[in-house]
């Protein structure tokens, strides 16, 4: 095995190596700044390696991992998102007491788990990636150890354990049925018409429980608002983007070869999850007064939109899902970045009322948040519009009438609560609290996200071309 052979795997390994290196460093010398720089460096290096890794792709590593264009695309946006989260964390953590350096170690480990998920082609790696991601998240959620933080961490721990148990049981059922845990073999066995009993759909349904929990699809969504509210803002940003994106990528890799349209009952199950999530997410956010919970519900709805793309499995739907995920990453990270920048201490900048008159105090942050919310609502000339538009195109092409109707209905409801927050941002306020400067790293990350948001909305062609070439190369 030469270096060239390992190159495609390097983006997945670098964050893990960095985590170990930081752990060693922390044993002898504690420095928040150095740790943050190291973590950012490791993530940036992984990000920069991705174009080179693409040259060696697609490449299989045994039965466990397959590093192809799609995996590298998802890994790339995961690394970029983790980098943004690290940038938000620095200013956020600098205001906290106690040891903050371990946050970066956990962040890197969770990122590694996410990256492994995107490249997994076997239930072993799927489970391994999921667990690395989840175990690191438990601590990241409870990192602040306030009352809400601990509550959020425990809730996530218990419920994640429950859903992971369901997932494992599903894997076991499928293994019992087909004798393999490789995604491609499962699909080819089914294609070849292997006789299957009811254990097979039951197994897939149980796996959907695990996936649905991570994506916070209704009815597995109840943890999301509580956890988003209690977790530190950078963790919430990570939770709503990297964690979901990685699991979705893995679900895509597993479920698309399965050819859901030919399994009517499973198709209906996924469609029901998607539709119910779209409606429930948007309805729950409607009159919510806490912006973190609004974002939690909004992400439930967005994952519902995205889950609809699992239903066709056409290359167009795959491309639409990839673009949607990218746009969602940008938007969600931007919104959480603003919240992180405004959170002085636990419980700050939570109620929508806290954002009254923000445009006067922090015109830049308010402008960025406005753009992010408009994009979440799907306004034209933002990334959110183009991505939703592609989703609709793919959905209509795949004749997903009910999910697409729910998407439109959900989007219509969504505009209300997004605009409500925007109106609050620009409402007049008498006694404005003093303005505190945002740390430059967070500011730069938010600025870059804003630029990306507009670039994707106005000029999506190059990104689309990349996505389409990746899909063409993978299939």
């Amino acid at each position, binding site marked *: 095995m030469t270096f060239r052979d390992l190159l495609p795997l390097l983006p997945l390994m670098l964050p893990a190596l960095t985590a170990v290196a930081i752990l060693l460093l922390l044993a002898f010398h504690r420095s928040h700044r150095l740790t943050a720089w190291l973590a950012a460096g490791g993530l940036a290096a992984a990000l920069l390696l991705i174009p080179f890794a693409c040259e060696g792709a697609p490449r299989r590593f045994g039965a466990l991992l397959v590093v192809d264009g799609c995996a590298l695309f998802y890994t790339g946006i995961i690394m970029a998102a983790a980098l943004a989260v690290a940038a938000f964390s620095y200013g956020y953590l600098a205001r906290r007491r106690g040891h903050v350096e371990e946050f970066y170690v956990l962040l890197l480990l969770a990122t590694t788990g996410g990256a492994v998920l995107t490249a997994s082609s076997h239930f072993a790696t799927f489970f391994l990636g999921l667990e690395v991601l989840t175990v690191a998240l438990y601590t990241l959620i409870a990192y602040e150890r306030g009352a809400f933080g601990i509550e959020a961490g*425990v*809730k996530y721990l*218990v*419920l994640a354990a*429950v*859903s992971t148990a*369901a997932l494992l049981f599903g894997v076991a059922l499928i293994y019992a049925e087909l004798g393999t845990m490789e995604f491609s073999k499962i699909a080819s066995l089914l294609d070849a018409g292997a006789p299957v009993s*009811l254990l097979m*759909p*039951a197994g*897939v*349904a*149980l796996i*959907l*429980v695990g996936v*649905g*929990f991570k994506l916070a699809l209704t*009815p*597995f969504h*109840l*943890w999301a*608002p*509580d956890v988003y509210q209690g977790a530190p803002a950078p963790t919430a940003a990570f939770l709503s983007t990297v964690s979901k994106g990685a699991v979705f990528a893995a679900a895509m890799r597993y479920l698309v070869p399965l050819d859901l349209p030919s399994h*009517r*009952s*499973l198709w*209906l*199950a996924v469609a*029901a*999850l998607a539709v119910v999530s779209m409606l*429930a997410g948007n*309805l*729950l956010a*409607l*009159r919510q007064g806490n912006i973190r919970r609004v974002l939690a519900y909004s992400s439930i709805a967005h994952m519902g939109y995205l889950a609809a793309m699992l239903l066709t499995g056409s290359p167009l739907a795959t491309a639409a899902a990839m673009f949607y995920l990218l746009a969602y990453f940008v938007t969600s990270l931007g919104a959480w970045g603003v919240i992180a920048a405004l959170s002085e201490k636990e419980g700050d900048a939570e109620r929508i009322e806290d954002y009254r008159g923000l445009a006067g105090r922090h015109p830049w942050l308010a402008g960025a948040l406005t753009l992010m919310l408009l994009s979440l609502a799907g306004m034209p000339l933002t990334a959110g519009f*183009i991505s939703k*538009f592609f989703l609709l*195109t793919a959905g209509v092409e795949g004749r997903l009438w009910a999910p697409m109707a729910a998407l439109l209905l959900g989007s219509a*409801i969504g505009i*209300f609560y997004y605009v409500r927050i925007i109106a609050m941002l620009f409402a007049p306020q008498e006694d404005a609290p003093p303005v505190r400067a945002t740390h430059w790293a967070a500011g730069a990350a938010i600025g870059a996200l804003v630029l990306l948001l507009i670039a994707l909305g*106005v*000029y*999506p*062609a190059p990104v689309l071309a990349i996505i389409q070439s990746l899909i063409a190369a993978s299939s």
Partner: protein
Amino acid sequence: MAELLWLIPALPFAGFLALALLGSRMPRPLVATIGAGTVGLSALAAIAASLALAGSAGAEEGITRTLWTWISVGGFAPAVALRLDALSAVMTLVVTIVGFLILLYSTEFMAGDEGYSRFFCCMDLFVGAMLTLVLADDLLLLYLGWEGVGLSSYLLIGFWYKAEANVRAARKAFIVTRVGDTAFALGLALIATQLGTLRIQEVAERAPLFWGAGSGMAVAAAALMLGGALGKSAQLPLQTWLPDAMAGPTPVSALIHAATMVTAGVYLIARMHALFLLAPVVMGATAVIGAATLLMAGLSALTQSDLKRALAYSTISQVGYMFLALGVGAWSAAIFHFMTHAFFKSLLFLAAGAVSMRLRGEHDMFRMGGLRRALPGAFWAFVIGAASLSALPMVTAGFYSKEMILERVWSSPRGAGWLWAAGLIGALITALYAFRMVFLVFFGEKRQETEGRSGARVMFPLAALAALSIGGGFVPMSRGTWEAHALPLTLAASLASLLGIAGAWFLFHRRRGMTERLAGSPAGALLRRFWAGGWGFDQAYDALLVRPFVRLTRASREEFADPYSKGVARTAGALHHLLSRTVTGQLRWYAMAIAAGTILLIGMAVFL
């Protein structure tokens, strides 16, 4: 150079962005440099691009550059594409060069204003949007520019937003033009659905194939386009916003409400002329509207006491000439008149601004007078502008363009004698009101003392525009415009102009007392009020549309549509409350939900 076409609109946009983001923290000289400099650079780029176009082999065809395709669905692919041909080159050159001169003038004119950077920010946004409109090769992009200029016009009319009247004027302009914009948007939708494209070239190619001449679709599309053009260009019956739009700073009036934006409608029709040729009815309507507008607005201009309002009515009237030319199919004559009008009308506005600057913001002509010696620079600039506006024979640019329009109206198969007569009477009225302004402001007895002095940044644009107002007529226009004119027509036009000037001298200088007595007589006063008030359109609209509408909305506040919309809101709210109760915060309940969901999913997967 053609590759750098995108620079022309991008430079003002860059200036807009820089000023919008950092303008409030910049020192004023830097604001002025960025504000005017980006437009100046854009003008240089436009000159270079036009030279390249003229020198290239395909000058007739024009250059098209597709920057990128926005989205592409089922063959419908609106693209961000720019097109430079003879038409858009003329527009681009005028917009950038006149725009630069006006912005240069503004650096001094606006010097004392607290909204200095906001002013340049909006002006740059306007120039960028206008250039997008002009250069767009796709109707959707053109519409984006169309809305962009509407927005910046709104922002700039209400620039001094602390006075309520200004805000009201801005709102009026926005709403009235919106009527036209809606028609335009409907036209776009019609074209997009019927022809399957919004690329201007493809529309021009497909329209004759899909629609026969005079067919209903073609008439509908052209009529909707005309509706958009009427709103933007302040033509009957949507002309009422322009006089009020003078609430903005004078450079705004000069650039947006005289030289460029109000002629966007002219440009649109000239751009889409292939479509209009399919709809002779609409062409006829265009000509009639143009003729009617030019007469009515000319008479209104004759009775104004506010210098800027007089100029505004004059603009409406001159744009009416352009519509008249478009209506008879004289596309290049219309664009030629657009160009000379841009020169002399912005010159008149800037000269008027230079006068009011020295009179502490005075706009009332009857409180000026005798300023000839005190303000020689402004005087000569204004006289040259007025001469060009009155089409003083042989020496002014305005003569050549107006003469060309009249000649075409007479000779074109679509023209008619009575349209020509209307144009000729209009020319007489034009000369009359143009020199009325000259005599009222600069001759007679002095009423006010001037103060301060105008600097080079005010005087240079005046000189440059004066030179263009004289020399602009000798610029040979594209393709065979210089045909042999019928000598009698030329003589008639010249005579109308000279007669008008002489009449103005007689009525407003020599025998001013007599005129005032005449205007003071009961019949005269009534007529005067009627004309000065814009023919009662405002009152009529207020009585016929605004008040009934307000009453209707008030009456229907609790009407049949409400229970429905409120019902939707209430249902959503109720569902929200219902669902909210599932989020209890209790871990065991959450785990129960997961268990229930699992059972449901397995049930669906196994039993369905």
